[in-house]
């Protein structure tokens, strides 16, 4: 038997998804090995051979999502690097944009990633381009050699180079790389004109310095992993998930490691996209509710919404990323009462330890999960597939003591209140995320993920005016299954500052052709000759500093302008006939490798549904209780109902019905 393997390493679990040649899909969770994450990958390999009879030599694709890049930053374990800048600008990295995040804090902390290269690691070279890319001062090679010598004396492993206006002409940066590599062939180099060829020197310096900072770490990690895979007998090249939701080979990933920051979440978004598409939905909002946070992402026309300016640890990282917004609300969020007697939920979380009061591990604070137990949404005897027995009396006690008695209400009323407040917070966050991107959530389906998502989906959909909810078969391992469903994708961009009024379509076509050639080379290295090609331009009104990405369907100014006006009207609600300009051009090549959507399995249809008293906002009701695997294919489940499965609990409010649909998903629809 041959097959493909996807491995996603998260903080707690390493998820493994395997698609065998016969179409069957296997899923497993292994504990993450935090010291050396690659050990869990190799453990997955052994398990695949043992449990699924898939020998390493029969693996036809090996795809990996990793947090190694992110962790290197969060734990400040990147390499010691040097930064080379244009004379006069060595402090740009430390000064940044001078804004502070916490407006009312009196004692301030640095807002810029100075840790990447403190002053002694930043050197200037003599050179200067003007705003049109013309050379004002030629590159003084002696100043380069001096800077490099000073940096190597400090034992740096990598050097980032960011010169002013290098996105208009990379010659000086490239020459600096040559000079470094002639003398220090093992020193790694990141050029800003390669990493992020776009204007605004602070943001470009940041992303380039981050690239250099994690390059040695990622290179070591991938070398170690590839060696392990080869030793185990895997013959296919390793593929990595990039932040934008596409795959690239490990050999390309180590050249541009800054593209790996959202490797994990990108898998989840692609998995959500695949699950939605299998169920017949192209426009969905994914809401991943875990213990401490809730991640929101949008999928439009069966493609994840991307942003070209992302963040890592609060610092700007200007590479394309899936547009995931995290808020601090989850099942472990703690409920409390403020000084004026208002009920608050979060942002503090009980986490996994001690966890909610009902876990009985010493947690005394009432959480959202405790409220779910009090309301009867969660069966204490059947939590996490029966692997953990909850103590409902502790949930009652905590809510009674902290919330109900001080507010003069019953424990049930307080528990409903906790859910309502949490749901209002999450609904407003979803609304802000979607409307901020010019999207009306009412035209979208909701796709709940994580252990907590399906519990809140109906309430969120009701608040947002959403009519359909898609619950995938295994909301808990969607990141790993997304790895197998993702396309191989490469993207190349260039600055192309050109007012539409003076656009020369031939020059535009030439620029795109040059970008396509670079992309072709990258795709050929992955063994792909045929790819879907899409061209984009970043366009803004002249004088406006933020641009919109417009898909290019023709190279004449009128078509581009019309597309820009339409995009502006969609995102901002208005457009005017003021003149516009192109800022950047971008080409994206991608090739899909097949879908991982599972076949609808024949349900065993054993056992009739039970019933249980639950409490919802309108009062106590009798809910039908189903085990997900035993819902017969053509049965329509009507709310109020609860559908239980090992990794989550689905709460169906009155007015909603559920039925099995394509891809083994459940489709919930609102009829009220």
């Amino acid at each position: 038997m041959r097959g493909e393997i996807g491995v996603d390493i998260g903080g707690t679990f390493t998820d493994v998804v395997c698609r065998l040649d016969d179409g069957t899909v296997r899923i497993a969770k292994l504990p993450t090995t935090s010291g050396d994450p690659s050990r869990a990958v190799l453990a997955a390999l052994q398990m695949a051979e043992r449990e699924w009879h898939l020998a390493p030599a029969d693996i036809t694709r090996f795809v990996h999502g990793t947090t190694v890049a992110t962790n290197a930053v969060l734990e400040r374990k990147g390499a010691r690097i040097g930064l080379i800048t244009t004379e006069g600008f060595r402090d740009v990295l430390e000064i940044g944009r001078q804004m502070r995040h916490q407006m009312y804090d009196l004692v301030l902390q640095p807002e810029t990633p100075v840790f990447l290269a403190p002053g002694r690691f930043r050197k200037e070279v003599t050179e200067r381009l003007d705003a049109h890319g013309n050379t004002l001062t030629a590159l003084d090679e002696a100043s380069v050699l001096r800077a490099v010598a000073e940096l190597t004396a400090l034992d740096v492993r990598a050097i980032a180079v960011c010169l002013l206006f290098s996105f208009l002409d990379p010659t000086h940066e490239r020459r600096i790389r040559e000079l470094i590599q002639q003398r220090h062939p093992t020193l790694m180099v990141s050029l800003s004109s390669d990493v992020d060829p776009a204007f605004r020197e602070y943001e470009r310096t940041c992303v380039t310095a981050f690239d250099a900072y994690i390059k040695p770490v990622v290179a070591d990690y991938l070398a170690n992993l590839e060696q392990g895979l080869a030793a185990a007998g895997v013959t296919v090249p390793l593929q990595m998930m990039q932040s934008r939701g596409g795959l690239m080979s490990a050999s390309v990933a180590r050249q541009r490691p800054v593209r790996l920051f959202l490797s994990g979440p990108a898998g989840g978004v692609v998995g959500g996209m695949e699950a939605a598409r299998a169920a017949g939905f192209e426009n969905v909002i994914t809401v991943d509710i875990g213990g401490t946070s809730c991640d929101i992402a949008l999928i439009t026309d069966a493609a994840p919404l991307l942003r070209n300016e992302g963040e890592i640890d609060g610092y700007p990282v200007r590479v394309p990323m899936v547009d995931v917004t995290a808020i601090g609300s989850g099942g472990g969020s703690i409920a409390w009462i403020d000084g004026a007697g208002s009920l608050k939920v979060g942002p503090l979380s009980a986490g996994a330890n001690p966890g909610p009061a009902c876990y009985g591990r010493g947690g005394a604070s009432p959480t959202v999960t405790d409220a779910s137990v009090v309301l009867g949404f969660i069966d204490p005897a059947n939590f996490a597939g029966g692997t953990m027995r909850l103590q409902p009396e502790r949930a009652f006690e905590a809510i009674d003591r902290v919330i109900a008695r001080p507010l003069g209400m019953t424990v049930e009323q307080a528990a409903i209140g906790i859910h309502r407040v949490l749901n209002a917070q999450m609904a407003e966050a979803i609304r802000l995320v979607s409307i901020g991107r010019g999207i009306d959530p009412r035209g979208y389906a909701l796709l709940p993920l994580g252990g907590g998502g399906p519990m809140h989906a109906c309430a969120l959909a009701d608040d947002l005016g959403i009519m359909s909810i898609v619950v995938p078969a295994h909301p808990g391992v969607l990141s790993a299954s997304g790895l197998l469903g993702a396309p191989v994708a490469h993207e190349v961009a260039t600055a192309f500052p050109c007012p539409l009024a003076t656009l020369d379509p031939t020059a535009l076509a030439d620029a795109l052709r040059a970008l396509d050639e670079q992309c072709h080379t990258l795709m050929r290295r992955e063994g792909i000759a045929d790819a879907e090609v899409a061209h984009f331009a970043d366009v803004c009104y002249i004088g406006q500093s933020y641009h919109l990405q417009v898909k290019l369907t023709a190279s004449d100014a009128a078509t581009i302008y019309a597309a820009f006006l339409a995009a502006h009207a969609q995102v901002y609600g208005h457009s005017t006939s003021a003149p516009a300009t192109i800022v950047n051009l971008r080409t994206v090549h991608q090739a899909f490798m097949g879908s991982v959507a599972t076949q609808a399995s024949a349900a065993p249809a054993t056992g009739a549904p039970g019933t249980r008293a639950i409490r919802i906002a309108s009062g106590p009701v009798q809910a039908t209780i189903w085990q997900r695997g035993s819902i017969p294919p053509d049965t329509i489940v009507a709310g109020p109902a609860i559908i239980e499965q090992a990794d989550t609990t689905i709460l169906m409010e009155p007015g909603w019905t559920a039925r099995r649909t394509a891809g083994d998903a459940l489709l919930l629809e609102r009829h009220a």
Partner: protein
Amino acid sequence: MTDPITIEVTRHKLEGIANEMQSTLLRSSFSPIVKEGLDASAGLFTADGQTLAQACAIPIHLATLIPVLQRIIHDFPPDRMHPEDTFLLNDPYAGGTHLPDIAIVQPIIVNGQVMAFSAAMTHHQDMGGMSAGSVPTNATEIYQEGLRLPPLKLRDAGVENATLVRIIRQNVRIPDTVMGDINAQVAACKIGARRVTELAGKFGHNALTAIFDELLTRSEVMTRQALQRIPAGTYRYVDYLDNDGIDLEQPIRIAVAVTVGGGRIHIDFTGTSDQVRGPLNCVPSGSLAAACFAIRALTDPAIPTNAGCFRPISLHLPDGSLVNPREPAPVNARTSTIKRIASSIVAALADVLPDRVPAPSAGEMLMLAFGGRHPDGGNFVTGDLVASGSGASATSDGVGVIETDATNCMNLPAEAMEMATPIRLHRVALRAGSGGNGRFRGGAGTIREYEVLVDNVTFTHRGERHYSAARGVFGGGDGARAESVIARADGTEQIIPSKIVTRLMRGDRVIVKTAGGAGYGDQAMRDPARTAADAADGVI
């Protein structure tokens, strides 16, 4: 009374609406000052003009829309308002702040009755007047500062006031940008009106109004509780602004006496300079914004921002003084004044809150404006907002080049400035040695060097801390004072006395050095490893 759960759910809705308005406002505006400076805010107000929820990117906007609402309600009786009316004003003496800030207000009418207002305020890139950018440091009357708009209807029952729009377009240097930003404000207000109307449909008009009252009361209660945790007493601080841009030898005194006790805070400005000839005067809403910032910073920032937070505040603003000027005193540079008032109120409490109040930050937000013609003939107006060093605290060094107190603006990237205007930057650097010394040292200021590439550029420089330093505490040193010069192409140098409006010619350079933050504690107690690292990194 409505149940506490519904109140909290509604609060999330109202804050969500304010955030959505703000998001629309920032994203759809044109001018760099909104995009990069975030100098705009949006909010919801009760039918009698009290703040319900405000999304505020910078503290200087706190409470500043309240006088606007009061004036609109006074001039246009709400019972005759139409749901598609839109009101506008920018006159500081009719509820505004300074002329570049235009306020837009829309009534939210349910069942034929005004139940709330949505409002947005934006700092526009230009409002006409004697200098590009409409913040002339040499103005002596408000008439020189730009187009002054009394409370007017921008839209009457949905029909745009074409006369008003033509007058605005005719009087500003960049009409497309200004009207684009006004349209963004209108769009933000429409969103607020639509969503509050939906909310009223769900909860009912009367129930929702009752919730509004309850939300204000709750923020008031919590603010009073937090104030009671500050030791009661009267605390004083005096600081100086450099000059008013006209009388260059005359420092401006800001004196505050902060009385805390009984859940109230009273700030008496007796002893503050009389109103000045130049534009540093500040109408009362500015002092209120400064006081609001100080209270939020000193109490609990988690308290929901609404008019309830402002109820424990009382101010004594002597008539005819810097903080309560008489018409037609110029006011365009009031930001510097508000910043210094905010930091002085906080500094007054340094002795009773030594762990929470750091040494003073320089608090200089240098404002530069350049205006002229491109070589191809088109006009350009651009600005830069340059920060200074923050003060050290009991446990940490100050931060170099960071925004503090009432403002929070981004600087302009060199590449953005050079691509848009005939100006070149030669240097963007930390100013070594400018932080005050101490056990913990102050943050450094910055050095920026600009060269203009065309003739006849109108240049405005509005600095602070050129003559009075941020003063160290508990034995810490003062931060370095700011210094700016114009290096003319002919080799002569001209020192900028904190404020100037002048003309630059091709090849002239402006070199600005902003001030450092103050130090905390005795230098002798400093960890030698910190001193060595500072030396290696070129910070000292």
